[in-house]
């Protein structure tokens, strides 16, 4: 088939899909891997489109044909029967060939998709009901740190994510970057991708994991490599002690009201392990696994009544006076 | 629609053995699905065996003697079982009665041995996945053993009462057939449970 026919065909099936691009869309690839997948997908889509059209057209013609001879049901025409038999056999063989070719196309795509780059930046992500624990692993322990619900990655550099689960099965999925991979209890999976453009890409847990499966999202922020290094440098630091009095009060309340039982703020006495690490919560874009934007108002709403916003999640509602709440918000906000 | 009679089947018998009989096909269908059940259970065992670095997990392999003794009894039981079969085909009521009693006794003996086997598995079902699958497999086979024993006893009772009619002989042959299945199903399980953990 000439190139222009092919590209025209691809375009005609692909065009309606362009409209669907968004920050969490498989059709808006921003990484080598997701591009590869879209490429494979378009090929399959084109073949399917052709097959379906042929089937319906032939069916339509068959129904509308006017040259039928009336007769008893068993008055068959042997020449037609043999001819039809041959055509059916031919189509069967054609189907076999097509699916074999598609299998190879698929496998080729799979090879590219899962190609491993030994020099990749390594992240370890542990799924929790219903948030993401993130570890940046580096050659030196000084450069390894934990965060949650948001990952930042350098553009143009391969990133490897090791996936584990602390409870049930979850699935790591940032459609703009690559396909998904499950986080399975008792086993470690791996996935690699290389972002091509800077931007904020939304990811979401794709394996049903209980009550708040719907609210288990995260942000993947692709930065220029130098920005990324700067961010990593900063993120590696412990929290700085608050300077204003309100925030200071907030820090104390954070410990006094039990928050520290579940949350870690590096550099302070707060070392809880049951909830997300909050060392740099103030610099994140969202809170509660992508459920709310990271704003003082949203933080307040969340801490005041997490069960209202995300019913069933594992952070209890803590009894706080509104003054205390404001202090805690103030404290968290400055944990940049 | 008008009907024309083209054949009279009045002379055909009213029951048959083996391939001819409906219940036989029913029995073989059930064996097929139960055999599949055993195959899946074996698959579970081998899967767990493959994914675990140590096997058996936190236990020593089962003691050999109960399983081996059972295997021997199972294999020997085929002989009286075949006699039962022959007697049933000959429709010899007296012999069938005797052999059914013998088969019932063998079944009871095997159930007792099975009790020892559970006791000598050297693991509990809640110790580890190894214990669980071993108990599952043994339990599955014991259910078959127990149901077939129940069936044999009921048949024996029937044969000693007014219900000992010719068509019961066909039922007896089906029971014989099923017993062979229980025996054959045991052999791979014996190897799996008693020998694979010693590999």
């Amino acid at each position: 088939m000439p190139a222009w026919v092919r590209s025209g065909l691809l375009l005609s099936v692909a065009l309606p899909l362009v409209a669907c691009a968004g920050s969490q869309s498989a059709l808006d690839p921003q990484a080598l891997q997701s591009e590869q997948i879209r490429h494979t997908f378009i090929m399959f889509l084109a073949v399917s489109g052709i097959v379906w059209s042929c089937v319906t057209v032939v069916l339509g013609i068959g129904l509308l044909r006017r040259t039928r001879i009336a007769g008893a049901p068993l008055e068959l025409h042997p020449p037609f029967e043999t001819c039809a038999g041959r055509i059916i056999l031919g189509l069967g063989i054609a189907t076999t060939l097509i699916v074999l070719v598609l299998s190879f196309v698929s496998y080729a795509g799979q090879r590219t998709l899962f190609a491993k780059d030994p020099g990749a930046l390594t992240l370890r992500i542990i799924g929790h009901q219903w948030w993401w624990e993130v570890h940046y692993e580096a050659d030196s322990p000084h450069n390894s740190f934990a965060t949650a619900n948001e990952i930042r990655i350098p553009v143009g550099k391969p990133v490897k994510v090791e996936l584990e689960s602390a409870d049930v099965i979850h699935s790591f999925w940032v459609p703009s970057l690559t396909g998904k991979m499950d986080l399975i209890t008792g086993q470690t999976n791996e996935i690699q991708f290389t972002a091509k453009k800077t931007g904020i890409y939304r990811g979401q847990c794709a394996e049903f994991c209980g009550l708040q499966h719907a609210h288990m999202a995260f942000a993947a922020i692709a930065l220029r490599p130098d920005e990324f290094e700067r961010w990593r440098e900063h993120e590696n630091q412990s929290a700085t002690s608050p300077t204003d009095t309100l925030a200071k009060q907030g820090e104390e309340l954070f410990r006094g009201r039990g928050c520290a039982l579940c949350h870690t703020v590096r550099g302070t006495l707060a070392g809880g392990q049951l909830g997300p690490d909050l060392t740099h919560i103030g610099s994140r874009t969202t809170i509660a696994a992508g459920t709310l934007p990271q704003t003082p108002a949203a933080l307040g709403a969340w801490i005041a009544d997490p069960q209202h916003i995300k019913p069933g999640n594992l952070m209890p509602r803590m009894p706080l006076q509104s003054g205390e709440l404001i202090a805690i918000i103030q404290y968290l906000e400055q944990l940049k | 629609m008008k009907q024309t009679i083209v054949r009279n089947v009045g002379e055909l018998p009213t029951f048959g053995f083996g391939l001819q009989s409906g219940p036989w096909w029913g029995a073989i269908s059930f064996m097929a699905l139960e055999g599949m059940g055993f195959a899946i259970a074996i698959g579970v065992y081998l899967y767990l065996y493959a994914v675990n670095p140590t096997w058996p997990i936190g236990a020593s392999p089962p003691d050999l003697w109960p399983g081996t003794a059972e295997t021997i009894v199972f294999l020997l039981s085929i002989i009286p079982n075949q006699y039962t079969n022959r007697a049933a085909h000959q429709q010899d009521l007296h012999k069938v009665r005797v052999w059914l009693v013998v088969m019932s006794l063998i079944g009871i003996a095997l159930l007792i041995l099975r009790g020892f086997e559970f006791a000598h598995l050297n693991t509990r079902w809640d110790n580890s996945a190894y214990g669980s699958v071993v108990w599952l497999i043994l339990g599955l086979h014991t259910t078959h053993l127990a149901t077939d024993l129940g069936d044999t006893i009921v048949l024996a009772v029937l044969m000693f009462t007014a219900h000992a009619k010719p068509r019961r002989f066909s039922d007896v042959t089906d029971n014989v057939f099923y017993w062979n299945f229980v025996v054959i199903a045991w052999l791979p399980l014996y190897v799996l449970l008693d020998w694979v953990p010693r590999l």
Partner: protein
Amino acid sequence: MSMAVEQKEMRDDALHGLQLATRLEGIWRTPSGLMGALMSVDHKIIGRRYIVTAFAFLVLGGLLAILMRIQLAGAEQRLLSPDLYNQVFTMHGSTMMFLFAVPVMEAFAVYLVPLMVGTRNIAFPRLNAFSYWMFLFGGCFLWISFAFNVGPDVGWFAYTPLSSLQFTPSKRADVWAQMITFTEVAALAVAVEIIVTVFKQRAPGMTLDRIPLFVWAMLVTAFLVLFAMPSIMVASTSLILDRLVSTRFYDPSSGGNVLLWQHLFWFFGHPEVYIIFIPATGMVSMVLATFARRPVIGYPAIVLSLIATGFLSFGLWVHHMFVTGLPQLGAGLFTASSMLIAVPSGLQIFCWIATLWDGRPVYRTPLLFVLGFIVIFVIGGLSGVMVASVPIDTQVHDTYFVVAHFHYVLIGGAVFPLIGAVYYWFPKICGRMLSERLGRWNFWLAFFGFNIAFFPMHILGLMGMPRRVYTYTPEMGWDRLNLLSSVGAAIFALSFAVLLANAIYSLRRGMPANDNPWDASTLEWATASPPPPQNFDRIPVVTHRDPLWADPNILPVIAGLSAERREVLLTSLADAEPQIREASPEPSIWPLLTAIATTIFFIGSIFTPWAVVWGTPPMAITLIGWFWPTGSKEDEE
């Protein structure tokens, strides 16, 4: 062997016409009254109940679907709480798969297969009655639990460890697992009955190459059930054991493995979808031949396709697990095997199109649904081929793209043929025709409603919408397509309302149907509509694949069966030569009692392991009661 009793016995060759008919009717009739109804072993009565019950579950499952569609119609709707939503979609999926789709296919088989092969009752009629009761009790158990807020909420495949005791401490997962056990027992029983009926009870002369295609399809399905269901039995049993007596099958900290569950589930789950689809193709072949006014082209090709699909379906389960981190090459092979199943499916489609091409199609409602089936199913099949590709699946797995795929194949591939089958066989079962005018409304509403409801889901999936989410935010941009989809679902639901209205109206006012209102070719049309209790006054002899077309006026039959007691003719496996006149069981209350005992056993055992101990004796007693000879004539030989 033949005894003195037999000589004196009256045979059907001594009687003719009405006399014979009344006599046989007296023998085969189900006793009247409530007790009679509970004792019935007539495959037609049980089949009818089975069909009605399965459709009742369709309505229930469909109403849940409507709830989901209302919830998802816009962003951040609050009709259902997350807890309820999770129960609702799990109940929807489980009800549709286990209480509607599989049983309804079996139900049609229970009704039709004995008629199509020309026998008087299904093999093991009491087992058949038992099967129905187990299905009914299992379904009621699930729905009553749901009413008490212990409906399962772990998805229709209940992945561990979410379904383990630690993460689902309530009884919800046990309810799910035990409902599986109920329906599996029911399905396995029917499978055995179908196999033996087809193997041994075919009318004389119905050689293997004269078996109607629906019967072939059901035979293949029965084997699929036989070999696939043990896997889920082992799975659900081990899950219950984990939850109840702390075995460790799925506990990674003690050597268990959570992927084991997925292997066991999908080793069953994939064949399961063909257990639903293959019978539907059988229905298509039957309807198509009648309304194309010629036999289906490529009978051998279709039979081979069915068998090939059956075999292949056991080699694909891993395509549901592409993102669990399995070895890449292995996954790639499962891509190829999954796609290969397009070949037998395609062959069938080609044969049907060729049949229509050469035929003289009569556009009655059943045919409309078959045409709709072809158009929709091919889309679903092709989206199946897409998700079979590992790279594509890593994107669309667990998104609405997959939801779209499986509704296209399930509804397009199975429900459309099924509704066609309802229009087609309704006159046989009920003696009256369904209204053709309402039928057309039904079809067009269904066709457009379905596509409006489910096509947008493909796009939603690609736009990143995961499945099983109870809500989403407006920023995601999914709301408009979801609204469209919900509107489509409402139209689709309306089509079912039309069907329901049509059935109720036609039961009373429909045009009375004669024996063979469509001028079809297979044996079920050779008897009255609805058929008498004995099905046929004399067992037909088959000399052609389309017996009623080969000779529309004269039906060759055999004589010599008993006119005093229930007797069926057994024939040989391959060439259907008469072999035995076998007694067929009388009505009995024991299957019901056994089902009750089993139900107590099953439900009890999710609360305490001791139920296995005290639940066994009642089961044993009822079983002995079931098989104990009653001293009636048939047992006396």
